[in-house]
């Protein structure tokens, strides 16, 4: 009897385990990938597909913890300039090439010696890549750089086969079409503008993975149709449905809608070099005048939470600052002190770039009206807007308010603070992303220190200090942190949603 029970149990386990296997997942996306060469793509869709075909030395889990991937473990020298990676053995690229230290060196040398679209992630940071032995690779940095491991978890750091680089490296456009990595899925077919098909890698190194036989990324530009594809059973997963249709999807009992935090902070930048926005009292007043909870509920339909720092709650390095509570009386008083009671400002905003961006700008206009500030909202098409903000011509630096969003794709705060608040990046220098033209020497020093600091506790102290200072100086009106919304079929399990705005389905399986 006992034996029979054991036998039954074993059979049950085997069956239920086997049941996890099989099925092709259909992911419906808004546009085609630009390139499947990780170091040469800059759009979310290319990056998502790269994350299923390629792997890096390290990778993020769902909470943005750094996990070993192609490296089993690593060591950092005490001065923070030498990173030694002990590589996983017996891993092969899809074309049969061996993954080893030479492959790591080949890839990073290729990225650094060519001006690819992600070369900037490593240029000026990695001095040299060394092969210590067959399965030990070393990066020597120009100077200590504390977020380095996060850079290696970025999609731009996913490693392509050395063989494919030898064959097609001279033509990044062609290399971007073949996609040879070590990941759980391999590129099977890419029908331009139509779909990208991946199949299971039968020799994948993670025991028992992947469960799916394949993934098809179908391209449907219209978001309402993507929603209908899901409802009609023609698709299994979609990312960021339009907020107005989220309730429809939630009502559908064949589907699951998950709402997870994103690292993206939506803000209204203020040109701190232009009067009267050069007066900190005016900038603080504008912050006090905004009812962020109302913006989140009424405009964003609860797909956002109020922001109180330039970093989102889930960005590595975030420390709560308290932010600016909604206090129109205080706002009026501050404006009075600054002698700016009849203020007129212009707010530039993209339309359709972020969920309900223009609608949020209009709501802000209404709230500022309450404290006697007249705002002229100017919606602009994205490319026009970008070239207006990042123009190198000093005559164009006279804008006042501008609505933008930022999500650090490396998951950590340095990627927010350095480009957006360090005076290195004020036009026409550096990345030119410091559009508020904000400059505070103490903040500059702290950001620089954060880049070098290796001690975790000291790092967090610096982070806390710098966020407090930036919030006080208020170069932005801090609005809200966005959410990622993912809708998928109920039978689908283990869908990962990274706060860096990625849906990862490499571990997913169908519960049949």
């Amino acid at each position, binding site marked *: 009897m006992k034996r029979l029970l054991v036998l039954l149990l074993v059979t049950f386990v085997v069956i239920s385990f086997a049941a996890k296997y099989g099925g092709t997942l259909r992911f419906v996306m808004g546009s085609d990938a630009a390139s499947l060469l990780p170091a040469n793509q800059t759009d979310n869709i290319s990056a998502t597909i790269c994350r299923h075909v390629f792997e890096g030395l390290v990778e993020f889990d769902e909470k943005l913890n750094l996990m070993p991937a192609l490296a089993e473990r690593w060591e950092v020298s005490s001065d923070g300039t030498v990173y030694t990676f002990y590589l996983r053995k017996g891993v092969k690229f899809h074309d049969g090439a061996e993954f080893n230290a030479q492959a790591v060196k080949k890839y990073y040398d290729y990225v650094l010696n060519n001006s690819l*679209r992600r*070369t900037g992630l490593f240029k000026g940071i990695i001095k040299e890549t060394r092969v210590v032995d067959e399965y030990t690779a070393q990066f020597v940095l120009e100077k200590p750089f504390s977020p380095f491991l996060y850079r290696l978890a970025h999609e731009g750091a996913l490693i392509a086969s050395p063989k494919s680089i030898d064959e097609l490296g001279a033509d990044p456009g062609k290399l971007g079409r073949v996609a040879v990595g070590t990941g759980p899925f391999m590129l099977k077919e890419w029908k331009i*503008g139509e*779909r990208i098909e991946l199949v299971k890698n039968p020799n994948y190194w993670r025991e028992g993975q992947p469960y799916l036989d394949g993934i098809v990324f179908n391209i449907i530009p*219209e978001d309402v149709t993507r929603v209908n594809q899901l409802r*009609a059973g023609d698709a299994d997963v979609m990312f960021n449905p339009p907020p107005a249709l989220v309730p429809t999807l939630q009502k559908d009992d064949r589907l699951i809608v998950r709402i997870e935090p994103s690292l993206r902070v939506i803000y209204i930048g203020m040109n701190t070099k232009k009067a009267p926005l050069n007066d900190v009292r005016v900038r603080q007043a504008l912050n006090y005048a905004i009812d962020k909870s109302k913006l989140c509920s009424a405009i964003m339909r609860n797909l956002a939470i109020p922001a109180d720092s330039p970093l989102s709650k889930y960005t590595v390095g975030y420390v709560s600052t308290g932010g600016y509570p909604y206090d129109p009386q205080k706002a009026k008083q501050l404006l009075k002190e600054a002698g700016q009671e009849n203020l007129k400002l212009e707010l530039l905003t993209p339309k359709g770039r972020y969920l309900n961006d223009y609608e949020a700008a209009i709501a802000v206009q209404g709230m500022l009206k309450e404290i006697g500030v007249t705002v002229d909202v100017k919606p602009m098409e994205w*490319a026009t807007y970008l070239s207006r903000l990042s123009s190198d011509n000093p005559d164009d630096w006279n804008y006042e308010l501008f609505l933008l969003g930022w999500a650090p794709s490396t998951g950590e705060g340095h990627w927010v603070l350095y480009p957006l608040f360090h005076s290195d990046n004020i036009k026409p220098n550096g990345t030119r992303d410091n559009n508020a033209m904000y400059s505070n020497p103490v903040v500059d020093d702290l950001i620089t220190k954060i880049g070098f600091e290796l001690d975790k506790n000291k790092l967090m102290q610096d982070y806390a200090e710098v966020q407090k200072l930036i919030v006080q100086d208020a170069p932005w009106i801090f609005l809200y942190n966005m959410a990622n919304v993912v809708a998928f079929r109920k039978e689908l399990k283990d869908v990962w949603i990274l706060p860096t705005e990625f849906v990862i389905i490499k571990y997913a399986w169908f519960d049949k």
Partner: protein
Amino acid sequence: MIPVILGVSIISFSIMHMIPGDPARIIAGEGATKQDIEAIRSKYGLDRPLIEQYFRFMKGILTNDLRSIKTERPILKEISPRFLNTVQLAVVSIFISSIIGISLGIASAVRRNTWLDSFAMFFSLIGVSMPIFWLGILLIIIFSVFLGWLPSGGKGGVEHIILPAVTLGLATSAIIARMTRASMLEVLNQDYVRTAKAFGLAKRKVVYKYVLRNALIPIITVIGLQFGYLLGGAVLTESVFGWPGLGRYVVDSIFNRDYIAVQVGIMIIAMSFVLVNLLVDIFYALIDPRLRRG
């Protein structure tokens, strides 16, 4: 043909370069340094004087040496599959709309002022005035979401083309029906038709052999024009159904400021329009013997 293409190339080039925006800035992505952006600009010659850029572009066309700025792939490899998709959709939908449009037009002209006529004209009024975008979504909701008969979008087997072709075809068929009716009515009032009737010829024979044949020229013109438009890519239909055609690609490329893709796309659209018009002229000669002699 050549002056048309030259003209189109100059106009599309100037318009693309007149609108603000910088492809390099968009491609470089967030956190790109000035150097990254400059590198992309110089790679595509975007830092050169406009005249030089234009001549480089024309040279690239002649030597087939142009690449999409966004994907860095040869531009014809990007455009030709999409153009073929557009041709497919255009052919099927012009076929559907000609059949529906011509039959409705004939029926309502022959039975003028009957319920059939009113119905046909009401149908075509709806067809002309219904936003194609809305019609497409409606058809998806009915035939894919509720009935589950047809796929809701994308490209695949034959079943994938039905909804987009019908959506496009309905609007076009309405235009063709109206033109057929008007043109038929005009011919129906001609003396030779009355004479034919007076001779006691069968009504069917009069309608098809004498009336329709003589009414055909304006109908062919409309069909040709509509077909030309469809070859330019039906942006809205392509978007709603995720049909990977040329129209949507050109629009996306405008947003990405992929100058090369837009310019080459527009030139192909213009060429196909010219070609269709040529075909229509040949058709005229086939159906109207007088034109052959001239």
